[in-house]
Structures are given as structure tokens and as C-alpha cells.
């Protein structure tokens, strides 16, 4: 198993390298550079040119890339033009918020998917199953930002059960128990909005896995042993059906990134997604580049996690 994990980690290195080059070249391809919008038009173009030279903006692209990536590795992703602060610092606060939102969403996703998938798979072609598959079809069809808006309007404004913005109430003291509760309170509605939509893929996947496993020969063996129906389900069908769900985890994470970008903006939740959209609008390219890079790395780590989980739970992969 260690071999698989080490090999998988080694594969990650060229992946991240390629990703960073792509992100860098994309940033370069965007019109303008760090000095275009920053400076007073009255300054002498020659002075700007000198500044370009000094900042290395006239160097060949691979040298610029090397400077950028070696700084990035040391934690320096450049300066935000808009906020006039280091990008690392700017993202740092928001990344924690987004991580909490993602974690909450993941928990909710599985809390919804596993019971619904199991019910639907075990009692397939009953009314309950039809209801659940009906929900998954709606989930596939409905755009996330519409659902999020409806949720915000209904539970935030109409019923006023949840806050409609921010990640914590003003005046809460960091570190206290009520501060944590308040954070969770702010998380719930956006997290639920994403989870309701992203979970449908997992529900259907689990349902199909269970229906498939039910018809396997080893289920007959279990029944022939005299195992009760509940034991057949718990020991044989569920275990074997949940395994591929682990492999789905990576995709789940990718879906999450897309989800948070929209939902953070709609709920004015101060996370990376909101920052990302905001920075695109005002052309704050250093921030955009940094966030794209981070999202890319998150996706790569997601698929790494999937593979590792799968290699731990599936003996056929673990031993080879």
C-alpha cells in the first residue's frame, strides 16, 4: 500500500508543475500587467519602462515564471492591487472560511446521500425510491445559483431563520464557544444550498451500486449461510457498495469548488470564491492567478485522497 501512496505522490509533482505553468501562461496572456492600471498617466513612459525592467517584466517568460514560482513556493504570491496587501495574507483569512464551508458542505452531502442512497437502492422501484430519484433528477436539472437564491430568500429573508451574510456576527469574541456556534450558524444555509445539489450524484451512484451488489452471487452465498436480511445488508451489500463512493470523493471536492464560488457571492460569505469573483471584476490579476493555482492544487489533492482511500479500503488494490 505504501508503494501506491508514494507512487501517487510522485505523480503529483509533474501534475502540479504543469498546472503552475498553465496558470502562469494564462495570467501572462491576460491584457496588461502589474503596472498598467497602477500608475499615474502623467508619469514619463520611460520611467515606467525602467520600472518594468527593474521588476523583471521584460525578461523572457521562463525567467519570469521561475521568479514567480520560487516566490510562490516561499509563500509570496505577490501584491493585490486592490487591497494593497500581500496576496498570501489576503487569501489566508478567506481560505479558512472556505475550508470551513467546504467541510460543512461535505458532511451535509454525505448525511443526505448515504441514507437516501441506501433507502432508494434497498427498496428500489417502490414509491419511496421514485420520490428519491425524482429529487435527484431535479437536483441535476436545477442550477445551483437559483437554488441558493431561493434558499437565501426563503430561510434568510422570509422566515429570518438564518443570517443572510458574513461568516460571523460583528462583535463576537474569537475563541469563545459562542463564537464557534455563531460561525456554524452562518455556515449552515450556504453549506446546505450546495449540499442539496451536489449530493444528487452521490445518491444515484450509491443507489446503482446497491442495486448492482444485491444481484451478486456472494449475496446468495450469504443468504444460503442463513444470514438474516439485515445482516446481508449491513455486512455484505452496504460495505461493498460504499467502497466506490470513496472513489467519488475526489469529484465531490471538485464540484465543491464550483459550488463555493457561486454560493459565497450570493450569501456574501467572505471566502475565496467571493474574493475570486470580486477580483475578476476589478482585474486584480495577481489574486485571480493565485486562487486559480490554489483551486487547481485542491483538485489534484482531491483525486490523490480518493486514490489513497480506495487503496486502503479495497484489498485488491491494497495488496498488489
Amino acid at each position, binding site marked *: 500500500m505504501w*508503494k501506491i501512496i*508514494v*507512487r501517487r505522490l*510522485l505523480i503529483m509533482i509533474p501534475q502540479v508543475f504543469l498546472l503552475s505553468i498553465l496558470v502562469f501562461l494564462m495570467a501572462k496572456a491576460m491584457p496588461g500587467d502589474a503596472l498598467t492600471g497602477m500608475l499615474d498617466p502623467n508619469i514619463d513612459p520611460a520611467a515606467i519602462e525602467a520600472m518594468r525592467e527593474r521588476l523583471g517584466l521584460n525578461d523572457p517568460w521562463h525567467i519570469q515564471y521561475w521568479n514567480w514560482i520560487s516566490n510562490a513556493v516561499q509563500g509570496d504570491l505577490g501584491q493585490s492591487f486592490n487591497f494593497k496587501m500581500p496576496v498570501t495574507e489576503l487569501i489566508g483569512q478567506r481560505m479558512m472560511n472556505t475550508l470551513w464551508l467546504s467541510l460543512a458542505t461535505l458532511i451535509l452531502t454525505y448525511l443526505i446521500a448515504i441514507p437516501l442512497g441506501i433507502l432508494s437502492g434497498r427498496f428500489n422501484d417502490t414509491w419511496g425510491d421514485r420520490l428519491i430519484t425524482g429529487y435527484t433528477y431535479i437536483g441535476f436539472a436545477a442550477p445551483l445559483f437559483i437554488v441558493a437564491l431561493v434558499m437565501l430568500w426563503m430561510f434568510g429573508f422570509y422566515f429570518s431563520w438564518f443570517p443572510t451574510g458574513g461568516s460571523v456576527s460583528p462583535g463576537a469574541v474569537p475563541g469563545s464557544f459562542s463564537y464557534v456556534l455563531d460561525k456554524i450558524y452562518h455556515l449552515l444555509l450556504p453549506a446546505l444550498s450546495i449540499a442539496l445539489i451536489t449530493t444528487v450524484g452521490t445518491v444515484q451512484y450509491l443507489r446503482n451500486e446497491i442495486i448492482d451488489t444485491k444481484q451478486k452471487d456472494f449475496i446468495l452465498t450469504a443468504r444460503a449461510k442463513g444470514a438474516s436480511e439485515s445482516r446481508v445488508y449491513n455486512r455484505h451489500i452496504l460495505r461493498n457498495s460504499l467502497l466506490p463512493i470513496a472513489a467519488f470523493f475526489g469529484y465531490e471536492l471538485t464540484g465543491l469548488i464550483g459550488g463555493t464560488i457561486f454560493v459565497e457571492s450570493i450569501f456574501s460569505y467572505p471566502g475565496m470564491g467571493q474574493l475570486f469573483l470580486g477580483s475578476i471584476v476589478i482585474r486584480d490579476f495577481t489574486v485571480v492567478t493565485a486562487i486559480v493555482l490554489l483551486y487547481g492544487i485542491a483538485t489534484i489533492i482531491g483525486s490523490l485522497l480518493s486514490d489513497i482511500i480506495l487503496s486502503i479500503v479495497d484489498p485488491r488494490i491494497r495488496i498488489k
Partner: protein
Amino acid sequence: MALLEVKDLQVHFPIRGGLFSRQVGEVKAVDRVNLAIEAGQTYGLVGESGSGKTTTGRAIIGLNQITGGSILFEGADLASKGARKQNNVRRDVQMIFQDPYSSLNPKKRVLDIIAEPLRNFEKLSPQEEMRKAQELLEQVGLSADNVLKYPHEFSGGQRQRIGIARAIALKPKLIIADEPVSALDVSVQAQVLNFLRDIQKELNLTYLFISHDLGIIRHMCDRIGIMYKGRHVEEGTPEDIFDNPRHIYTKRLIAAIPDIDPLQREVRNVFRRSVSEEYDNAYRSHFDQDGLAYPLRSISDTHMVAMPEKG
């Protein structure tokens, strides 16, 4: 001259392992196999799973890469580059597969399945193509109006006949049949076997017949080769193999065949015990230190056994 002559055929598969999936070894699936088939004859290749019989067949038709040796078809070496590109080889050697359920594309009509080889090699008008497909269907004993149906509308035996129709569409000289009836019920099996013999006579076909079922092999073949772990252990006429087996592996294989006569049970048990004893006692003189068979040596005009130099 033999129609097909396989000389020292080797097919090795790499074993990969380690951190970077480097090749750490190889499986010698086919390890210096020799065989020759005369035109119009049937050569039976027998062995248990892992014996290399299927790999041999697939290597001859070009589905497995050859590691070494030569395959002479009408004198031309198929192992050399370019030989297979010549159209006549690809037309003249066809294959019938084991599973009639998965070897026919379910989304294609019978017409398209049978006409596919024709389309590759002959430029026929749609009318000619249709007529040819209908002729072929009738030749394999199916009614010509089945030509627009899909594979799922047919039973296992009928599907296998469609597979045969496809194989004979180009009037091949050699057909490689890999377990062509093992997925079929006994009564359907009889039908397909009879039919394979009929078209053999009619079209002067040569068969390489691969099977694990010794009853079928005896019924179908003029010459039989027994394989074990990628090598031949014995080769001869059906009489040589079944009435006078010389290698202990062949003896054990034949002794294991279920007997249709229950009155012989006791006799069989005694016989099997003696074969099993002989196997244990004579193992060292029949296999080398790696547990592999020795090269074949002639013991009569027709009969060859894998034995060490002296013995």
C-alpha cells in the same frame, strides 16, 4: 507442404512491479511451440487454463504480439513485419470466438456483422452485399430473412452460426476456433460441431481447434497437441493420444475425464489411483527442474512426446 507451420513460437508477457512499474520479469505464456497443419485437416490444441493454448491461437491471427519464432502460412512468415499487411493473409485466416453473446456487436444488424469483412476487402454494391449475406446465412443454416435482425433475437447456437458466417464470408483457408462451443448447451453444441465438419468438407477448410474438452477434441481432430505451461507435452493422432498416451501429464488428463459408464466406476478408481501414483513417481523424469516439459521427441511416425535426451 503444410498450410500453417509454427516454429519455435514464443509469446512472453511482461510482469511489471516496483515504484515505477518497470518490467521485473516475464510470463512465458507460449514457450517455443512447434506445430504444423496440413490443408483440410483439423489440429486440436488441448490444455487447462494457463496452458497457453488460447495465446497460441491469438498469436497466429495477430492478436498477441510475438516474442520470437516464426509462423509460416503458405510459406510466408507472418511474424516478419509487413507480411500481415498483405491482404490475402488477413482474408485467409479467420477466427471463431468462444462467447457468442459478447463477440457479436449488439448494436449491429446481422447484415452488418456478416458483411463487415466483405466491406474491408471487397467492393460490393449494397445489393450484392445483401445477396451475399443472405447466401452466407443460408449456408450456416439460418433463414435468409434474418438478415435485418439484431443478435439479441437469436439463441446461443444461432449466434455462434452468425459468428461462423462472418468467419467464412471471405472464403478463408484457415479458421482458428477458440472454444467455439463451450458456452453452449449440449444439444446446441452437437449442432455447431456437426456444422463445422460439414463446412470443412464443403469449403476445404483447415481448422486450429482450441478446447479444454477432450471428448470434443477427439470427435473433431486429425491431430492433437497437449499443452502444459506454455509448452507441448505430447502430440499425435487421436489414437496415439487417447489409446497410447506416453507423457504422465497426458495420462493424468485423460484419466480425469468423467466416464459415461457408471459400471466402470470401480475400474476407473483403481486406474486413476495407479495413474496418480505413476505421476508422483515419474514426475522428475518427465519435467525439468522448473516443472516445465522437455522438447518433443518422436517415438513413432506420428507420435511425439516431451522427454529428456536419454529416456
